C-alpha cells in the first residue's frame, strides 16, 4: 500500500486504530537481545500455543527491549500493565488461565521490592521504571518492531508528514536548533547547528548525505542496539525529516555486524517504509525523495569516529582524518555530510511533533531532553534507563539501579566508555548532563554507565581501557599509536609490582601530550580513564607502586590465594576444579590445603566455593 499524501497517512492511522480495541488485552513479551539470551523465544511460542489451547482472545506481541534486562524474560499484560518477571516456560499456562481468562494476578511472578518486600503488580510501580522518563524508549514495550502498523497506530510518521507538508527545511532546522538537542553519540555537538552547516555547505552537484551512526562501540553501552532492534521506524522517521531539512536524497545506516537482530529489524523497517511510500521516491506525494542503504561495520571501535566511518563507507580502512575541513563541508565522497547517532535521530520526531518549546522544558540549561543510559556492571538492576538530563548520579544508581549487589561497597561509576572517566563516591550528587560530566574529567559518551564495587581495582580498569584502545588505535598518528603503548607498559608494570617512583609523573606527561596532539577523538580522549583514576584513586596507585599490594585483590602478581580453614567445609569442589593440583584434599570434611607455589591464581577455586572459604589478599 503506497501512501500518496499526508491525508492518506492520517486515514491509515485512523483505520488501524478503528480496528483495534484499546481495551482488548495483549501480552507484550520482551524480545531484546538480553531476553533472547534468556530464552524468550520458547516462551513466546509457549504463550501462543497456550492462547490457542485455552481459547483466550489475546494477542501475543513480541516487542523490543523493555530495558529491565536483569529480570528477563519479561512479560507485561496490557492494557493493565501487569508486570511479570523471570518468567519460565512452566509459568505460561497459569498466565493464560489465571490472568487472561480470570483476571487474577499470578503472585509468584511479581517483582518484589527489595526494600519493603512488597509485591508490585504494575510495571509503573516498579522502582526501576518509576523514576524514568521514557520518550525515546516509551514505545519499545508496545510495538512489534517488525510491524510498521504498530508504529503508525501510535502516531508514527505523523511528524514526518507534518514536516514535509507544512514546514520549510529552514523552519525544521530552526526548530531543532531551538530545542537545544545535542548529539547523543558522545560529542554533544548542537544538532541544529550541524544540520545548518551541512545545508549551507557548497555542493556543485547538490549532492548531500545523511548518515546514522549505529556503530555502537563503547563497551558496556547498548542503548542504540536496543533502539534499532526495538523501534527502527523512529530512527528512519528522524532521518527522513533530517534529510529533507538538509537537502539530502541518500542516507546510510552504518551498523555493527555484532548486532545481527538489529540489522534484520532495520532492514525490514526500510522495506516496509518504502512499501508504504514513507521512504523512497516522492515520499507521501510531496515530491521529496530519500533512500537509505544499510552498511555493516567490521568490528573496529575507531569507526564510531565520523571521518573513520565515512572512510569505511568508501570501502577503505577506517582511518580518521584531521578535521580542519569539517565533514559538513566535505564528508562522504567529499560531499557535505551530516552524521548523527541513533538516539539523536530518534529524538527528532518528538521535537517536530511536540515542538521545540515542549522539548526544551526537559533537562538542564545546557543539555535538553532525556538520555538513555545502560546501567551495567556491579549493580542490582542491570538495564537500560531513560532519564531527564540533570538527574543526579545517585538517583540513577540507587533509586533506579537498586544499589550494589551482595552488600558490597560502591567504588566508582565509569561513564563515556574508553573516552570517559571513573567518578568516585564523593561526586554521586553530580547532576548528569554533558557539561557537568566534562567538568569532573569524564564525559557523557554514548551513555554507558558501568558501576564498580570494592572488588574492582582502579589501576586494572585504567589498564583495561588503555589495552582496548591500543588494540583499536588505527596507527595513523604517532601520539596515539606510540603514546598509548607506553602508557600501557607503565600501567602493566604497576599492576605486576614493577612500578617505581616517577611512573605517575611520566603517565601524566604522556597523557597531556595525547590530549594536545592526537589526530582524532579516540586518541584525544584516551587519557581520561588514566587521568580520572589518578585524580580520584591515587591511593590505589600508591599501594601498587610503594607497597606492592592490590587493595581490591585483582592484580595477579600482587595477590595470594589462601583457604580460610574455619569456613572450609571440605566439600572438595575446589580440589576438582584446580587445574594445577595446588589444592589438595586433607580428608572428607577436613579443610583443604593450598600450595602457593603451585597456584596460578586462576580463580577457579574462588568461583566454585559456596562457603567464601577462598581468601584473596
Amino acid at each position: 500500500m503506497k501512501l500518496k499524501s499526508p491525508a492518506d497517512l492520517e486515514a491509515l492511522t485512523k483505520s488501524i486504530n478503528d480496528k483495534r480495541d484499546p481495551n482488548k488485552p495483549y501480552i507484550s513479551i520482551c524480545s531484546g537481545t538480553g531476553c533472547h539470551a534468556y530464552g524468550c523465544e520458547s516462551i513466546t511460542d509457549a504463550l501462543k500455543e497456550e492462547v490457542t489451547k485455552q481459547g483466550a482472545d489475546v494477542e501475543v506481541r513480541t516487542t523490543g527491549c523493555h530495558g529491565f534486562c536483569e529480570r528477563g524474560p519479561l512479560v507485561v499484560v496490557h492494557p493493565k500493565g501487569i508486570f511479570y518477571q523471570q518468567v519460565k516456560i512452566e509459568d505460561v499456562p497459569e498466565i493464560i488461565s489465571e490472568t487472561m481468562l480470570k483476571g487474577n494476578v499470578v503472585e509468584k511472578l511479581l517483582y518484589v521490592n527489595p526494600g519493603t518486600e512488597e509485591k508490585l503488580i504494575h510495571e509503573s510501580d516498579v522502582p526501576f521504571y518509576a523514576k524514568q522518563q521514557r520518550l525515546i524508549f516509551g514505545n519499545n514495550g508496545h510495538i512489534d518492531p517488525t510491524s510498521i502498523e504498530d508504529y503508525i497506530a501510535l502516531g508514527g510518521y505523523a511528524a514526518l508528514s507534518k514536516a514535509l507538508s507544512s514546514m520549510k527545511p529552514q523552519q525544521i532546522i530552526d526548530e531543532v536548533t531551538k530545542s537545544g538537542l545535542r548529539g547523543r553519540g558522545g560529542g554533544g555537538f548542537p544538532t541544529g547547528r550541524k544540520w545548518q552547516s551541512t545545508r549551507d555547505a557548497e555542493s556543485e552537484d547538490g549532492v548531500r548525505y545523511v548518515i546514522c551512526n549505529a556503530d555502537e562501540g563503547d563497551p558496556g553501552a547498548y542503548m542504540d542496539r536496543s533502539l534499532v532492534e526495538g523501534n527502527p521506524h523512529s530512527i528512519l522517521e528522524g532521518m527522513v525529516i533530517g534529510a529533507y531539512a538538509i537537502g539530502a536524497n541518500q542516507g546510510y545506516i552504518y551498523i555493527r555486524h555484532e548486532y545481527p537482530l538489529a540489522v534484520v529489524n532495520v532492514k525490514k523497517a526500510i522495506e516496509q517504509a518504502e512499501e508504504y511510500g514513507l521512504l523512497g521516491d516522492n515520499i507521501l506525494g510531496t515530491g521529496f525523495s530519500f533512500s537509505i542503504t544499510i552498511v555493516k561495520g567490521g568490528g573496529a571501535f575507531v569507526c564510531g569516529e565520523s571521518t573513520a566511518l565515512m572512510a569505511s563507507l568508501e570501502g577503505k580502512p577506517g582511518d580518521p582524518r584531521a578535521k580542519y575541513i569539517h565533514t559538513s563541508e566535505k564528508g562522504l565522497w567529499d560531499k557535505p555530510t551530516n552524521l548523527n547517532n541513533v538516539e539523536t535521530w530518534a529524538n527528532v520526531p518528538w521535537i517536530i511533533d511536540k515542538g521545540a518549546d515542549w522539548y526544551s522544558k526537559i533537562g538542564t540549561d545546557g543539555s535538553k531532553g532525556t538520555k538513555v543510559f545502560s546501567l551495567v556492571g556491579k549493580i542490582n538492576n542491570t538495564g537500560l534507563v531513560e532519564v531527564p538530563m540533570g538527574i543526579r548520579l545517585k538517583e540513577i544508581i540507587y533509586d533506579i539501579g537498586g544499589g550494589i549487589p551482595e552488600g558490597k561497597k560502591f567504588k566508582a561509576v565509569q561513564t563515556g566508555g574508553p573516552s570517559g572517566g571513573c567518578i568516585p563516591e564523593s561526586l554521586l550528587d553530580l547532576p548528569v548532563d554533558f557539561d557537568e560530566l566534562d567538568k569532573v574529567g569524564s564525559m557523557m559518551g554514548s551513555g554507558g554507565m558501568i558501576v564498580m564495587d570494592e572488588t574492582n581495582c582502579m589501576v586494572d580498569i585504567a589498564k583495561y581501557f588503555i589495552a582496548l584502545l591500543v588494540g583499536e588505535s588505527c596507527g595513523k598518528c604517532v601520539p596515539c599509536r606510540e603514546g598509548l603503548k607506553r602508557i600501557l607498559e607503565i600501567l602493566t608494570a604497576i599492576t605486576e609490582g614493577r612500578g617505581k617512583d616517577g611512573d605517575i609523573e611520566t603517565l601524566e606527561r604522556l597523557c597531556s601530550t595525547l590530549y594536545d596532539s592526537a589526530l582524532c577523538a579516540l586518541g584525544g580522549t584516551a587519557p581520561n580513564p588514566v587521568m580520572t583514576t589518578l585524580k580520584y584513586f591515587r591511593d590505589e596507585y600508591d599501594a601498587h607502586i610503594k607497597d606492592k599490594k592490590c587493595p581490591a585483590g585483582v592484580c595477579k602478581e600482587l595477590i595470594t590465594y589462601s583457604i580460610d580453614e574455619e569456613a572450609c567445609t571440605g566439600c572438595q569442589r575446589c580440589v576438582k576444579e584446580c587445574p594445577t593440583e595446588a589444592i589438595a584434599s586433607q580428608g572428607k570434611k577436613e579443610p583443604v590445603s593450598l600450595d602457593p607455589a603451585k597456584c596460578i591464581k586462576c580463580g577457579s577455586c574462588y568461583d566454585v566455593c559456596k562457603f567464601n572459604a577462598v581468601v584473596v589478599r
Partner: protein
Amino acid sequence: MDDKKIASILDKYDRDTGQLVPILQDIQDEENYLPKEALVQVGLGLGISLSQVYSVATFFKAFSMKPRGRHLINVCMGTACHVRGAERVLEKIERDIGIEAGDSTDDGRFSLETVNCVGACALGPIVIVDGDYAGQMRTDKVGKMLKKYE
C-alpha cells in the same frame, strides 16, 4: 570458492566499492575465512587494487585470514563483563582447549576470539559459541559449555 559465486556476491551489492565490508562479510560467511584467491577476485571485480582489499580485510576485527574451526567461541571483553571477571573465564577456556585468543585448535574444532562488547551486559560475563549466548559464565561452567560443541 569459485569465481561465479564471488561474482554473484559482487552483483548483489551492485559492485559498489562502498559495500566492500559487507561483500567480505558475505564471503567469510560462506568460506569461514577470507581466502587469498577470493580477495584477488574481489579486487578485480570492483576495479580496486588488491592492496586496498587487503588493507580493509586486515583492518577489521571481524575478518579472519586463516581458516577457522568448526565452532567459533567469542568471549565478550566489554567493560561490564570485565568487571564481573571475563578475564578469568577467557583464561579458563584458553587452558581447556589449549590455544590463545585469536587461534584455532589443530583438530579444527574451535576458534577462539574476543569481542569488545556484544551489548547484552545484564548477562555478563558472556561467551557466544556459534551465535548462542551463554550468560553469567564462571570458570566452573566452561567445561560443560564446551562439551556441547563437537
